[in-house]
């Protein structure tokens, strides 16, 4: 018997649960010392896991929100609400909120311009790192794998309005996302370019590219850049502003 409900956990979420549990306790919600009627105050439910100002929790699983393009963050909130991404806590957080408020939340965290942590120390072989660099910067034409830089910006800091940067993220998080995309547990607006790409990657590719990305230092300009003139190598439903206009 399946016992799905919004408050129970389907078995296929267990890996992410284990990852979440593996994090040794969440940091206490870093709250402002006194109450102020601000967005930051409204968002303590988010920053409890995603870190003060959305800088990410030091334990690695809950990703940084600060400075990601607002369109990307907004899309993710919609994905959680509409079942294209599945993490029970996130889904029930966004469920009761309006599109307008979700957009305001996305813009709030997108506007956080705060420093990134130092990159992780490499836990990979030089060959693995080299393979990762190759995939990230050049792709693999024989397997129709575009380079990460083709869509995520030459410096991998993201592209406005809705393509995220790939640096400053923990390797566990990158592995989990690429894995979820590969198995169909994470989806985006159709046409779902990242699903196509992740399905062409094998486990070793994912390990290599996550190892390389997670060990790169951010450039001086960490901001997402304006879209370039060159067409994207794939059709991406999520690279465009979501339905309804803004952002």
């Amino acid at each position: 018997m399946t016992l799905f409900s919004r408050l129970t956990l389907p078995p296929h979420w267990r890996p992410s649960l284990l990852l979440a549990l593996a994090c040794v306790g969440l940091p206490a919600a870093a709250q402002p010392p006194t109450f102020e009627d601000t967005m930051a105050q409204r968002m303590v439910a988010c920053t409890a896991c995603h870190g003060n100002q959305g800088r990410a929790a030091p334990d690695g699983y809950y990703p940084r929100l600060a400075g990601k393009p607002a369109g990307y963050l907004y899309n993710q909130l919609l994905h959680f609400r509409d079942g294209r991404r599945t993490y029970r806590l996130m889904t029930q957080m966004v469920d009761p909120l309006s599109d307008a408020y979700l957009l305001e939340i996305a813009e709030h965290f997108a506007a956080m311009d705060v420093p990134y942590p130092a990159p992780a120390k490499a836990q990979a072989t030089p060959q693995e790192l080299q393979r990762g660099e190759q995939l990230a910067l050049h792709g693999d034409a024989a397997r129709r794998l575009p380079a990460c830089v083709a869509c995520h910006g030459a410096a991998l800091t993201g592209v406005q309005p809705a393509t995220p940067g790939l640096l400053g993220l923990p390797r566990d998080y990158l592995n989990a996302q690429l894995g979820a995309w590969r198995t169909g547990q994470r989806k985006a607006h159709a046409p779902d370019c990242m699903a196509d790409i992740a399905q062409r990657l094998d486990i070793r590719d994912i390990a290599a590219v996550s190892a390389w990305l997670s060990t790169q230092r951010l450039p001086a300009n960490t901001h997402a850049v304006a879209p370039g003139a060159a067409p994207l190598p794939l059709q991406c439903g999520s690279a465009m502003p979501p339905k309804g206009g803004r952002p």
Partner: protein
Amino acid sequence: MSRIALRAFAVLLLIGVAVVAWLAWPAQPIAVPPATVAADLRDPNTIERGRYLSVLGNCQACHTPRGGEPFAGGYALPTPFGTVYGSNLTPSESGLGPWSADDFWRAMHHGQGPDGRWLNPAFPYNNTTQVTREDSDALYAYFRSLPPVDTPVPPHDIRWPYNTQLALKAWRTLYFKAGPEEPPTSAARAPEMLRGAYLVNGLGHCSACHVPRDALGGQGDMLGLSGGLIPMQRWYAPSLLDPAEAGLQDWSVDEIVALFKDGRARDALVSGPMAEVVQHSTQHWAPADLRAMASYLQQLPKPPASRSENPPAADGRALSVGGKRYEQHCAQCHGNQGEGITSQGATAYPALAGNRAVTMASPANLVQIVLNGGFGPATEGHPRPFGMPPFVLQLNDQELADVLTYVRTQWGNQAPPVSALDVQQLRGPLGR
């Protein structure tokens, strides 16, 4: 064995066989009289009224899957007997396409499908049976106007014997009471009160959650509102009769209306399943309907004996440890004295002192709120709610029990302590 005993046994056996045979007899579709006023199913006004009625009934909650096409069915509703999938209400082949308005009325009024099969009572037909034929026809007209969607809906995944027609007939024999054929009228009750009762008992289907249920998921009075644990969700739908729970007898009609319109009134915020109801249904109700419902709820009779016995005292350890945790995790927003925080004259973080959600006998909702945190519904009157962090990954059962025991016994609150076992049961095996 004496001859008399043998005879008695034979008679009992015969009666037993007769009852089973009656239950198992294939049902014919119940004959429904044609509508007295034939509805024009293509009239835009009828369709629009049907759309509004579907909002009153929050039909999409169970008939639209997450992120899916409106009313295309397939939403999985867990029950203690298995998973029920909301049916497709669009006019496609697998939806309402082959149904007539009479068929739709038969399902609403009698809980029976066009082929005579008894419907699963996860569809709250004890409530929909109260809906008038005119409203049923308008709903039907609206669903017929939707774009047809033919996404397959999985069959119900219910355990034997609950999945049998025999069990469903037994259930309805025990618990189902058909509503009136004609809209109720009464010289003794104001039209607004009649409308309120119609909304609460009919499309609003408040009792679907607020009725206490027995092991078979029923109760003698399926329109009762004395409160019950919602199966599987582990939220408690509080009594709408008892002022110590969610009874509204001491509220003004305006305050009640605000609660359903904005999701926030006085020092109360709706949360959990009720937040969904406000978000998808009541915030969109017409003002007159909100007032009618509020007036009706306000005059519900209080139960004869409200809870008044002295609760068992909490032990000193729980209070001391719970107090420290409160200071660490809760006081920042809910105040050192449980006074909460108001901003611009309205509740930002609710007070816990004197809060009925805190002091209700059942700790279920408190446990869910602290485990999951979250936001109240974003409504027109309260568009940017403040959020509460989840503590599910932070507090174990004992720690949660201690802090809840603390808030239930401080600042004048006098509620029974919460044990780690209570929390464990409410958290459930998959509750994280």
